[in-house]
């Protein structure tokens, strides 16, 4: 109607244009269909390969079988076998079948992202070729199946870690102990305090050593005076047997005691050297120190009692010759 004048103007080459368009369409369409058929391997000779798996999840028809990252075959069919195992029928073009040998291993892997992959690994390319229609088991690896297991073990590891590092954990307690020891090491008592457990004990040990030193020096004085006294006594009172005898005994005892004290003080010197050198055997030193302290105390008590005895037996000049312990 309205388009009638136009129709006449273009009427000449109308069929040609329509034919051109339809011809182009047919050529493209048929060409594409042939291309798809060729791409799908319809015109290609293939050989069959059946892969047997306990689970064909993620496998789809048309999926590639890859070798060294290159697709060499395609899944043609998936079915459940009589034994309850999945049978994956793969068609491999003959030109690509040379990569598949008798020793070839097939794997079916599922990643977190994407579909499953079937891969072939051939270790020895000189091996005998895989026959048409061969049936092979497929090894399966599934990342999504691994995840729950991994999470479970990770959780127990984290729990252990938390137990160790928590406020009541053993690691925390150990660190607390280390801190106390280092504080003591840095404190007044130094290694001794760290070894003995407290500053007070360390002070006592140091005091005992000081006392022992003082005692030693006084003992030297006492021994000299005693020698002098004995000389006098020898001169003056040699005849008086009772006094001389008693004094002689006392002096013998004193000498023996002084020997003991000297031994003890040698021990003190040794331990002092150990302690002051901040050696690693601080603990052993502390054990020795307590034993030594007891020894020193015992020696001092013995000396004390001896001096008391001397004072008691000393008949002359009481005020001058009074022997005092430090």
């Amino acid at each position: 109607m309205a388009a009638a004048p136009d129709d006449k103007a273009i009427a000449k080459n109308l069929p040609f244009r329509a034919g051109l368009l339809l011809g182009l369409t047919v050529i493209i369409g048929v060409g594409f269909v042939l291309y798809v058929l060729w791409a799908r391997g319809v015109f290609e000779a293939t050989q069959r390969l059946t892969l047997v798996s306990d689970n064909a999840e993620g496998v789809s028809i048309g999926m590639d079988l890859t070798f060294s990252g290159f697709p060499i075959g395609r899944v043609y069919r998936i079915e459940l076998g009589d034994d309850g195992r999945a049978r994956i029928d793969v068609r491999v073009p003959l030109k690509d079948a040379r990569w598949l040998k008798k020793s070839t291993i097939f794997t079916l892997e599922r990643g977190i992202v994407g579909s499953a992959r079937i891969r072939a690994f051939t270790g020895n390319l000189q091996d005998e070729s895989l026959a048409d229609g061969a049936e092979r088991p497929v090894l399966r690896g599934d990342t999504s199946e691994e995840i729950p297991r991994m999470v479970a073990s990770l959780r127990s590891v984290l729990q252990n870690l938390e137990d160790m590092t928590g406020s009541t954990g053993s690691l925390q307690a150990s660190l607390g102990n280390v801190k106390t020891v280092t504080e003591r090491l840095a404190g007044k008592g130094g290694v001794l305090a760290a070894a003995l457990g407290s500053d007070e004990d360390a002070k006592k040990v140091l005091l005992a050593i000081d006392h022992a030193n003082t005692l030693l020096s006084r003992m030297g004085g006492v021994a000299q005076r005693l020698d002098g006294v004995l000389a006098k006594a020898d001169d003056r009172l040699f005849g008086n047997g009772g006094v001389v005898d008693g004094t002689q005994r006392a002096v013998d005892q004193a000498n023996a005691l002084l020997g003991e004290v000297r031994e003890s003080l040698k021990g003190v010197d040794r331990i002092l050297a150990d302690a002051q050198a901040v050696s690693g055997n601080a603990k052993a030193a502390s054990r020795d120190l307590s034993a030594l302290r007891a020894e020193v105390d015992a020696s001092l008590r013995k000396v004390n009692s001896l001096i008391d005895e001397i004072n008691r037996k000393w008949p002359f000049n009481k005020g001058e010759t009074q022997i005092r312990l430090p």
Partner: protein
Amino acid sequence: MDTPEHAAHAIRWFEAWGHAARFALAAAAAALSRETYSAATRAVAVRQIYFTAWQLLPGFTVFSAVLSLLVIQITVNAARAYGLSDYALELVFRVLVLELLPFGTALIVALRSGSAISAEVALMHASGELEAMRAQGIDPLKREFVPRVVACALSVAALTVITCAIALVLAYIAMYGVSPWGFAPYTREVAGVFSIAILAGFILKSMTFGVVVAGIPIAAGLEANANLKSAPIAVMGAMVRLILALAVIEFVSLAVKYA
């Protein structure tokens, strides 16, 4: 008071679909009859192809190429960014080539030629031209309508094939550049997506789109009466039903493919 009007409306709606279905059956029967194919009907068909496909071709080709390029670039780049470039081509094929382009083509042809056909038939009906034809012993169905339906189906198929071919080429270039070495992986992707069933479904869907694009407007145009004012209403009803039908076909196709 409203209810009888609604009921009448609903009845008219069903009647309209009934007309369309009856017309489709009659047209299919006529298309199978040999006497439908004469020089006169061929001339009608050729003219319809010219108006529907040839005139539309340059503009629509450019439009669909730009749209395709956009979708392809977005898909390929996004897939690369996420490390999923293996799936980019499959996505382009499935979304663009198999769904968007056929549906877009059918929609454009429906808006352009469907409305024109509907109006033309309504005016032929109103002006008594169809009656005159029948009086001369010419069946308007065979002479005017079936050639248009066939021509529309061919036009939609042609436009779809050409735009899809352009999209396939653009997808190759976007993915691999102009290098010939992408051909093997590209072929593998094509083989993976276009199975025989998918191809058959694609062809069937395109043909259905083409038939519906002409068939529903003609059936709607025949509903017009001698009053010229009934023509716009007929055209409106044709377009509503046509777009609804296209959507239903697309949904059914998707459901069959992916559900």
